[in-house]
């Protein structure tokens, strides 16, 4: 989230699109209700009428996979009705920047497309620059080639009627949404956009999120209280694990992981450190060398020296796509022979999970760390498998639950909150840290006896033992915060070896600091347990003004509660919304008040978006693989032709064998019903925890498909019947929940039906059932590589009796 949970109370309009917040983040509704008490309107756009829709003031149907059309129509509505925050756009965004004349968009394709490789050459998406490389601007934002006019041209085709014919919503409902939401363009009005996997799990998921961002910038809703683009994370600590480099292409703190082309540290830094010729650009990523050097010092300790590039050579360099979907291709092909799973259950949660299950038997060994024996851990005895045909050696390591260990979790609002252990785990269960520590020691022992390339293993800095000789999570947290390994002067302050770093502003690139994750520097700035700011629980009078609560837990970066808050003030540092100000410049004291500002500089000294080299938020962006502006495409398995261009789906989807999904997409003729998957509040992810909890099983005992009354009537299906849902990947038999809450979609002159399935179930545990992921395609977004779980095609029929 750019903002945080409590900040929802400051919004005037809360748009829930691509999320089912009331079911999957139940505590959030408390803050949404606070907003409503102040007169806020809550909007819910979703394929079905969910419990969030029930909580919301208004509902608009939205066919799965059509978010960009939905948002694009709002963007056009904002332009047509002059609902743009021009001051905000000029000061804070690249609206006035001039794009290269070669840039073009034609019939669903941006300039630079190479059909043979299905990739874009992005050169024509760049800005025009002056002789120093500073982008040219038109402050009036009227030049045809300026970004704002490019955006306007892009969404000209997204007329109300066209959009309604794509998303399948009645016009009067959609138009009301456009009116209410774009009404937040005024200073003093705030609109917040809440999304989750409904937005991201798509073959254009990254562009979905870009679309939300473009609209929010046009309306001036980023950086302000009650605004923001807010990703509601699907796990209590998924934010933390992403921050710590969950993904293969990242190092901790969103540093890029080195690829094969980054042969030396100098190559890597040259390619990965952005430059700006504009003195008013803070260009924060220019500090990349400091963060990388400190990270390598944290990992390799004394072995890492300036002379040996801090052991950069020891880092693995990836040469191909190692994302989740491709991991299983790697297992299938025999490239990957061992698998360690920490609390992950891909046999239930992975797309086309039957394919993944079959792949697991190719492994030599697997170690699963979990609370229960999951479907993945027991893949060798799954229904239909013959254990004697499977050679994989499987280890099951019992882990403690979250309340049975100490450590921090980082919530969606970027708050890292420390939790102490509440009770001991049962039997031989151990914390993940204990298991990792034991695993590392055992591996090192092996490498100390020799082996191929032992250096990175035997030289790892691994000093986490606490007083009781057990690994202490506080020591890990202190390393993540960073410390001085030698006497040094940083930012005009002197430090001794062993001092904790006060924040990332004190990290150095010469090897005198070590830091496990620059983004978390400042979270544990001292040696004592009470220096752990993640454990802080202080509330001061006045904290409830806009609910920042800076003394409660700690939030990255540098305890800044609302990101991009420099965009909330004018050139003199005065808030655009005086009633709900986030930061303001006190000219007398020559200091900022309120939240921690984006950088210490006085107002006007630096551009507001300090993480970008141009210092301005990007309406139009060169960064993504599949276009500088979000454009509507149908899902990979779309039910209709694209009404906006002849590009049916994202042109970057690879279909070459071996690289893409295992199977060809199902055709709408054979699979005429749109399908989507989701979770319910009563179950947790792949279900290992909740499908072993009788009280929760009582509430949602079995896998089911939600089917609208009209489709059910056409197919002769009654509530509680067993139905078979079939896709090109496979089929499942589940209960039918026949409901008034799933309507039909009038799309391109056709009436489309959609069904929804919960994916929590599997063949282990107290409550069993089919996982909806038997049905989902293993095709992924070209940027994030997130699979398209949320929109595909299926067939539904009543199951045979008996």
């Amino acid at each position: 989230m750019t903002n945080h949970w409590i900040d929802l109370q400051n919004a005037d309009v809360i748009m829930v699109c691509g999320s089912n917040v009331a079911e999957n983040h139940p505590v959030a509704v408390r803050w949404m209700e606070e907003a409503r008490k102040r007169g806020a309107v809550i909007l819910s756009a979703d394929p079905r009428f969910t419990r969030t829709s029930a909580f919301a003031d208004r509902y608009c149907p939205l066919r799965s996979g059509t978010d960009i059309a939905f948002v694009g129509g709002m963007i056009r509505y904002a332009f047509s009705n002059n609902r743009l925050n021009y001051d905000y756009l000029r000061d804070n965004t690249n609206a006035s920047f001039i794009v290269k004349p070669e840039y073009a968009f034609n019939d669903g394709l941006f300039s630079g497309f190479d059909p043979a490789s299905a990739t874009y050459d992005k050169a024509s998406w760049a800005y025009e620059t002056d002789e120093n490389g500073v982008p040219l601007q038109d402050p009036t934002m009227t030049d045809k080639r300026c970004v704002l006019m490019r955006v306007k041209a892009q969404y000209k085709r997204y007329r109300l009627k066209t959009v309604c014919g794509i998303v399948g919503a009645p016009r009067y409902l959609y138009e009301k949404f456009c009116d209410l939401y774009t009404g937040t363009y005024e200073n003093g009005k705030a609109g917040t956009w809440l999304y989750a996997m409904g937005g991201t799990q798509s073959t254009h998921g990254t562009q979905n999120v870009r679309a939300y961002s473009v609209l929010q910038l046009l309306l001036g809703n980023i950086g302000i209280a009650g605004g923001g683009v807010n990703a509601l994370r699907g796990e209590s600590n998924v934010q933390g694990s992403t921050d710590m480099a969950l993904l293969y292409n990242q190092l901790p703190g969103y540093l890029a992981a080195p690829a094969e082309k980054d042969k030396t540290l100098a190559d890597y830094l040259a390619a990965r450190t952005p430059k700006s010729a504009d003195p008013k650009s803070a260009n924060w990523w220019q500090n990349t060398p400091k963060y990388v050097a400190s990270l390598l010092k944290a990992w390799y300790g004394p072995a890492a020296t300036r002379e040996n590039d801090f052991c950069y050579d020891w880092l693995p360099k990836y040469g191909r796509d190692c994302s989740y979907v491709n991991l299983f291709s790697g297992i299938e092909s025999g490239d990957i022979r061992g698998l360690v799973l920490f609390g992950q259950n891909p046999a239930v949660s992975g797309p086309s999970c039957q394919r993944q299950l079959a792949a697991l038997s190719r492994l030599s060994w697997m170690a699963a760390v979990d609370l229960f024996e999951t479907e993945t851990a027991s893949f060798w005895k799954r229904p239909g498998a013959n254990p004697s045909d499977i050679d994989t050696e499987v280890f099951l390591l019992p882990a403690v639950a979250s309340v049975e260990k100490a450590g921090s979790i980082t919530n969606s609002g970027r708050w890292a909150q420390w939790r102490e252990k509440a009770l001991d785990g049962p039997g031989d269960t151990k914390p993940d840290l204990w298991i990792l520590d034991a695993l590392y020691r055992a591996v090192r022992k092996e490498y100390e006896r020799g082996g191929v390339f032992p250096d990175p293993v035997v030289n790892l800095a691994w000093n986490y033992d606490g007083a009781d000789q057990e690994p202490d999570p506080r020591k890990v947290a202190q390393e993540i915060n960073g410390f001085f390994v030698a006497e040094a002067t940083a930012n005009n302050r002197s430090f001794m070896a062993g001092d904790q770093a006060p924040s990332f502003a004190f990290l150095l690139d010469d090897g005198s600091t070590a830091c496990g994750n620059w983004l978390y520097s400042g979270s544990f700035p001292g040696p004592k347990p009470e220096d752990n700011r993640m454990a802080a629980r202080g509330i001061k009078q006045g904290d409830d003004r806009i609910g920042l609560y800076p003394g409660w837990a700690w939030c990255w970066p540098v305890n800044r509660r609302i990101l991009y808050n420099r965009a909330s003030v004018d050139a003199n540092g005065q808030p655009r919304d005086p009633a709900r100000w986030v930061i303001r410049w006190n000219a007398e004291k020559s200091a900022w008040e309120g939240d921690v500002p984006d950088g210490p500089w006085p107002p006007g000294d630096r551009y507001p978006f300090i993480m970008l080299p141009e210092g301005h938020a990007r309406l139009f962006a060169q960064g993504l693989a599949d276009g500088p502006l979000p454009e509507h495409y149908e899902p990979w398995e779309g039910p209709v032709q694209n009404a906006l261009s002849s590009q049916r789906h994202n042109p970057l989807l690879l279909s070459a064998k071996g690289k893409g999904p295992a199977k060809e997409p199902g055709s709408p003729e054979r699979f005429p019903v749109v399908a989507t998957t989701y979770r319910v509040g009563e179950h947790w992810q792949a279900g290992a925890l909740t499908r072993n909890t009788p009280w929760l099983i009582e509430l949602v005992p079995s896998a089911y498909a939600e089917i609208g009354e009209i489709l059910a009537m056409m197919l002769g299906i009654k509530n509680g019947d067993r139905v078979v849902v079939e896709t090109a990947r496979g089929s499942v038999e589940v209960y039918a929940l026949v409901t008034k809450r799933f309507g039909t979609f009038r799309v391109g002159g056709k009436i489309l039906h959609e069904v929804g399935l919960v994916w929590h179930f599997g063949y282990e545990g107290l409550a069993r059932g089919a996982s909806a992921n038997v049905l989902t395609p293993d095709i992924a977004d070209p940027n994030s590589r997130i699979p398209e779980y949320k929109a595909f095609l299926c067939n539904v029929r009543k199951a045979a009796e008996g």
Partner: protein
Amino acid sequence: MKAMLVDTTRCTGCRSCQVACKQWNNLPAVQTRFFSDGSMQNPAHRSSKTWAVVTFHELPKNNRPGLFFGRLQCFHCVDPACADACPVHALKKTKLGPVVYDPGLCLGCRYCQMACPFNAPRFDWDKPVPEIRKCTMCYDRVAAGGRPACVAACPAEALAFGERSEMVAEAEARIRQSPARYVAHVYGKNEVGGTCVLHLAAVPFESLGYPSGLPDEPVADHIRSAMHTVPYAMATLGLALGAVAWVVNRRMENTGDKPDKAE
């Protein structure tokens, strides 16, 4: 006197309250196969093992889909008919508000169930001598100065707890402030002489499964004299029903088809 305020317009149907109730009162889960009628509701009814249930109602509004929630439990009447009806005074109204009971005294006569306008008391029919079971408003917690477990668990602040007079005032204030959001009625303010569980709703209460047409006078006044004439007949009937349940359960167990049983 304390009371709970259930604002069903704030409820999101998450059912944390249902689980918290079972956790605090150590009640077993009921085996369910699919949802009961009414969208995602489970279990279908209150029982000796389920003292409170969130009810789901798919009610289209202005030709648009709608989903509304109710909450059924013991309403803890100000002047409870059950307590008056109980021949052995197993049930009693406490000064703090909750209507509590002593299962050790219960005869299993089902008299209270007959008397209750909200059908709150339930019985363990699978025991030879059935005993009353119902929501106690977590009297143990309330007596210690706490809130009922369901109220503490509600993430949406749909449940509130406090002095009854304050809860009535709060409910009326909410209706006054948002007249479009609520039907202009605090359910339980006057029904059967008033209850200590008050409800607000966006749609008429009868459409959410709440008994309608209740008088403003305590039920107890009407039935007190009549009810006292037949307790022993009812006790006999109760025993007879218990015997029937025992036979039915035994047969079902013998055929391998498990009845409503804890896991």
